């Protein structure tokens, strides 16, 4: 069930990426923007990392900047990093690749679960974020936006719809997609600065996966299902978890009695 809802929302957002510029061409300006920053009616929403970079590089903050990050941060505090698994177009593509790999019977490159892996992953991605912000500070421009997968994909969609061409940035996405065939979710797990930055706002009291029953049949299918290589039974409060709900979806015990569930 969860997966179905998730796919529907992901698809709507993915298609919306192309529809919004189309509406703008027709001079309907209700929704405008990309996944760097988007306006719905009068509500401004922006990628917190993009705004953070603009603030750092210009040493200046104004009300538009401030207001546009309120909603996304509230969303993460309440629902966790749902943007990644329920919204990000790159994640949608990557899941498509997984599906394709299964269809083409290409060997799955997903590593097996290892207790130390989440720490290692977090170390690498926070490290990458910090180094990125450092470089951004030196260059003095919002450099990390140049490697923002969701931002680039949506802005390329805009350029494609509006001008019928693509700019060079698309190569970055193509390279990531090719690498994705060999390294399972490497961008989302190890590097994506946007996703990592969102993780910072995960709140203990927000939505997370909890094992509500003490024991279960121990089939370990949730561990096998988790795309972030966590153990959903124990570590779902890790900042890596993006509340995709795949673990809840596969848990066989859930059918009989609530075992693994989303809880606030």
């Amino acid at each position: 069930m969860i997966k179905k809802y998730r796919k529907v929302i992901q698809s709507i957002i993915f298609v919306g990426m192309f529809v919004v510029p189309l509406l703008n061409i027709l001079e309907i300006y209700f929704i405008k923007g990309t996944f760097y920053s988007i306006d719905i009616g009068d509500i401004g929403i922006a990628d917190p990392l993009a705004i953070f970079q603009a603030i750092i590089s210009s040493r200046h903050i104004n009300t538009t900047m401030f207001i546009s990050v309120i909603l996304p941060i509230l969303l993460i505090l309440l629902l966790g990093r749902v943007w990644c698994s329920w919204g990000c177009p790159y994640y949608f593509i990557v899941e498509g690749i997984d599906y394709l790999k299964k269809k083409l019977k290409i060997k799955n490159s997903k590593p097996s679960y290892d207790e130390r892996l989440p720490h290692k992953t977090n170390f690498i991605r926070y490290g990458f974020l910090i180094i990125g912000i450092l470089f951004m500070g030196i260059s003095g421009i919002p450099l990390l936006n140049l490697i923002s997968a969701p931002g680039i994909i949506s802005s390329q969609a805009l350029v494609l719809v509006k001008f019928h061409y693509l700019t060079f940035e698309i190569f970055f996405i193509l390279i990531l997609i090719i690498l994705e065939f060999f390294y399972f979710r490497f961008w989302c797990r190890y590097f994506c600065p946007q996703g990592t930055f969102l993780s910072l706002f995960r709140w203990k009291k927000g939505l997370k996966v909890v094992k509500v029953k003490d024991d279960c049949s121990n089939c370990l299918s949730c561990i096998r299902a988790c795309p972030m290589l966590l153990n959903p039974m124990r570590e779902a409060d890790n900042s890596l978890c993006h509340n995709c709900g795949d673990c809840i979806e596969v848990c066989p015990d859930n059918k009989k009695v609530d075992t693994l569930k989303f809880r606030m």
Partner: protein
Amino acid sequence: MSIKKFLQDFLNKNPFKGFYQVDRLRPPGAVEEKKFMELCIRCARCIEVCPYDSIKRADLFEKMQIGTPYIFARDRACYLCMKCPSVCPTGALDNNLVDAEKVKMGIAHIDQNRCLNYLYVKEEEGVISTGRAQICSTCYNVCPLQDKAIIMEKYILPVITEKCVGCGICVEKCPTEPKSVYITPSGMGNKDTAGFYYQRSKMSFKKSEEITDDYLKGDKLLQKKQNIQGEDKPKFKNNFKVQEKIEGW
């Protein structure tokens, strides 16, 4: 060169912060280029709302500016509809700018050695002889701030004044190849690094006070045109026969 000077030069020429090129402008309301590169998050909202497709997303040729919005005046100028400044989420474009006359994207400069009107006058005065003489006046005719930003000196020589907002419409429409009018983008570096055309155009500026105001515009002009009566028959020196009615008119 002292070390301090070297460091200054090296650091000030930050490759991330833009470089100068004529006819390549930031959208209206853009803050000074250095600040712009700090603020613009490349969200492309300004590109999206522009109804004339004037704003383009910078590609690899623009180096580290890739993804930022540019108006390439030679392809498509800004038509000053003022939709874009208000949508910028970071203030890279001044959100409060609504008055098209307050825009300052740059300033136009007319190349007097190429502009057809200037050539015509030179031809007329016998300074040069090209064997062809054309009056164009396109820039004057298309300028949205006609008689403010661009005036006709001696009724024939187009001159840019400091009221020019740099929209680039004159550049887009100029029929000569290469174009006889250029826009020097404003806010791109200081005037020492701004290059040749900035220096040149500064010299040909006219103070706006010098412009006389005895022309009709807008509604008044329309009124006057509508009041022109067909009844006053033109008086010709020679005794032409004036046609009373035109068939099928």
